[in-house]
């Protein structure tokens, strides 16, 4: 590419290289081959292919699998590599030109790495998370901590090392694998940070057995304090916000929100109605509807676009969080912001139910900078920009209910700072 070329030729050349690069990258699965310029180009490309990739990834034997897939793909590009531009080339070029990459910065789902040192429970968990079978920030965090307990129990210290040192690197490997399945949630990140601190704080003098025992126990405590008890406190507080005759709008299927509703209905014996707004492709609202129906709560089920039609009667909007970012915004399931805006426009209170484990140091302005793509189990159109999360501005949030009390969204950084030693 040192040689001078006209713009058009250059473009053509780059395109060819891009395709070649794509093949190379696929075949060498993870090897950082290829030059810099090529990598830049294929970055964009890999975005477009994200869905294809994610489909391939659903299988653990990703190496052989992705090879097989790329072979079938290469049939089309092998032809145009050598011959003169055909009409199909032009069609492809046009297809690429009409492509819009709204979320170009967001990393597409990857194949789960498999390493020799990985504990089976971690691998299992990574797969479950990737396929969204375990979903929800808190549930994922809990499942991870339970898996880590297993990892601790089954860990054998190498003959030449101490437990605390070698386990830290072992743990990092597990996290690496877990991360490759699906990006870590904020709560998982916080929990991992805590666990690493605990591990490094282990005394060198104690035996492996007692160190393991201590870790297993402290993880149990962590799950109890930061997730289970926190949930229970939030449920107790939040259910007091519900009144007889209320019509509660919920979006998605937050566990703590559902528990609150069930608690208010079954324990506090309040009579109210729930409107569930849902959206494709996850349809989490159906799951929520089943849970609420089973305890007898009357449920109206709509899709998010039908919200203007039903919003007239709504009295409260309750929503769970993936994270609360440090500038007070709510980072939650895509669509939450839309619902919150509609609710706020009608002066309907927007209550966010969020454990402090989900509080993040990060500041975020929009859904473009940090996000995830929803992995697709079925072959979808790569044009559908299936992002996982969006950002709700704090001005639409009336109250954030946490286990340390109810507070305005602007107080998130205060909690993070003041409670640092406890959190």
């Amino acid at each position, binding site marked *: 590419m040192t040689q001078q070329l006209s713009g058009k030729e250059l473009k053509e050349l780059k395109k060819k290289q891009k395709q070649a690069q794509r093949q190379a990258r696929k075949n060498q699965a993870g090897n950082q081959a290829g030059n810099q310029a090529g990598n830049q180009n294929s970055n964009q490309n890999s975005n477009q292919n994200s869905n294809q990739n994610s489909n391939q990834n659903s299988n653990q034997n990703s190496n052989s699998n992705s090879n097989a897939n790329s072979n079938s793909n290469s049939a089309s590009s092998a032809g145009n590599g050598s011959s003169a531009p055909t009409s199909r080339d032009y069609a492809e070029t*046009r*297809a690429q*030109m*009409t*492509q*819009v990459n*709204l979320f170009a910065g967001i990393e597409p789902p990857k194949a789960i790495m498999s390493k020799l040192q990985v504990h089976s429970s971690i691998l299992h968990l990574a797969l479950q998370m990737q396929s969204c079978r375990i979903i929800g920030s808190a549930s994922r965090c809990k499942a991870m901590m339970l898996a880590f307990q297993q990892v601790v129990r089954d860990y054998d210290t190498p003959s030449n090392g101490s437990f605390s040192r070698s386990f830290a690197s072992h743990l990092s490997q597990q996290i690496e694998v877990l991360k490759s399945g699906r990006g870590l949630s904020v709560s998982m990140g916080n929990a991992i940070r805590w666990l690493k601190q605990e591990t490094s704080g282990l005394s060198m003098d104690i035996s492996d057995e007692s160190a393991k025992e201590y870790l297993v126990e402290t993880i149990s405590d962590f799950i109890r304090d930061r997730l289970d008890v926190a949930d229970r406190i939030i449920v107790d507080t939040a259910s007091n916000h519900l009144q007889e005759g209320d019509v509660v709008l919920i979006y998605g299927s937050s566990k703590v929100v559902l528990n609150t509703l069930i608690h208010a209905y079954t324990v506090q014996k309040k009579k109210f109605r729930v409107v569930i707004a849902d*959206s*494709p*492709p996850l349809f989490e609202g*159906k799951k929520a*509807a*089943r849970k609420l*129906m089973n305890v007898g709560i*009357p*449920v*109206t*089920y*709509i*899709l*998010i*676009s*039908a*919200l*203007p*039609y*039903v919003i007239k009667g709504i009295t409260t909007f309750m929503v769970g969080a993936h994270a609360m970012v440090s500038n007070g915004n709510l980072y939650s*399931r*895509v*669509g939450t*912001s*839309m619902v919150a*805006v*509609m609710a706020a*426009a009608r002066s309907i209170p927007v209550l966010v139910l969020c454990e402090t484990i989900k509080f993040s140091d990060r500041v975020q302005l*929009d*859904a*473009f900078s940090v996000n995830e793509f929803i992995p697709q189990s079925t072959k979808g*159109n790569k*044009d*559908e*920009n*299936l*992002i996982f999360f*969006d*950002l709700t501005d704090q001005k639409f949030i009336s109250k954030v209910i946490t286990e340390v009390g109810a507070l305005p969204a602007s107080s998130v950084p205060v909690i993070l700072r003041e409670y640092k030693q406890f959190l």
Partner: protein
Amino acid sequence: MSSKGDINTQISLFLTQLKRRQISGAKEVALATANLLIRFISSRRWVSTTAMIEQIRILGAKLVDAQPYELTCGNVIKRVLKNIRTINEAFAPKGNKDTDLEEDLNPSSSMLGLLSVSDSMNTSGDGDSSNNSSMANLTKHKSNEAEPGLTPSGYYVSEEVRAKARDLRNAVIDEIQSLIDEIQNDDPLFKAGIDMITDSDLLLTPCPSSKTMVDFLLKAAAKRNFTVIVTESYPNNVEKAKKMVQQLKNAGVKSTLIPDAAVFAVMAKVSKVVISARAVLANGGCIASSGVAMACHAAKQFTKPVLSIAGSYKLSPIYPFDVESLIEVGNSSKVIDFSDAELMDKLEVINPLYDYISPELIDIVISSDGGASPNFVYRLILDNYSEHDQHLSSVEIGAA
């Protein structure tokens, strides 16, 4: 009279088609209504414009009742009625008393019109203009005309009046014909719309079901270089949304599909929201497919302009006092499949097909007459419709 049976079958056929939605979509319904009116008017002999207006109103009420959500059907009828009234005015200054009372029925006519009426009344010496019924109108003919002829309805009318009625009929049919041309010709609408779009715009359209929108974007793409984001419009218009994106891509327009839930997330990047109204209401608000209201709310949060595109025939002389009555609710099995018996059994599932978008959420209403602020729409509507025709039937949507 021979064609009367014929026209009646045509009317009942049209009514069934409306009810069964064999004719649907704002434009199709508008055109079909206009064509039916032509056949209806040419199938009969008209004694007076009053009778014509009365008959068309009766027919209109039937059509509107058959499918109250297709507002364009009523719009076309009301437009034609207004045209008849205007034509009537044009016939009036010639001094024929046949039309005097028509003026009375139409107090919203211009000052000039009123002057000419009083003028003709003075010359004819017939000062009694307070009578409003066509019956009285015809009786007056009977007394005044020298050569009476028997009309189908049993009244005596002169040959001269008959000739006049024929002229009137032809004039009305000509008017309807030009209305049809106007409905079919989207070019002025598109031209006004394209002026609002600039190169490198990132447009979001939540109306994939609208044919007008697809046509508009394709037309605009010939002149401007922009990108289109189409919302999925789940569950009612998913296929149409996919098709629209494909159509745009085939035409070389950069386009992509987003789920409805992601509208707010991408709105930060969008530069304009373009919506296609099914009907524009007198307050400047509009009815559009489900999901549009949310997109407009999101646009408002980011202060992005919202353009509402609607042919003049979609301007409806109706105020949305009761919004819910304007919105049709569709098949709930599209939301939750009947096969999911457990959910379907216990849940209340709602699937509204349309949204009402209040005028505050819209920045510009683009019609065939050019762009206008939503606040100004009532004035455009006043131009096109007579206030006497605001409601054709008592059960009509928006009727007080």
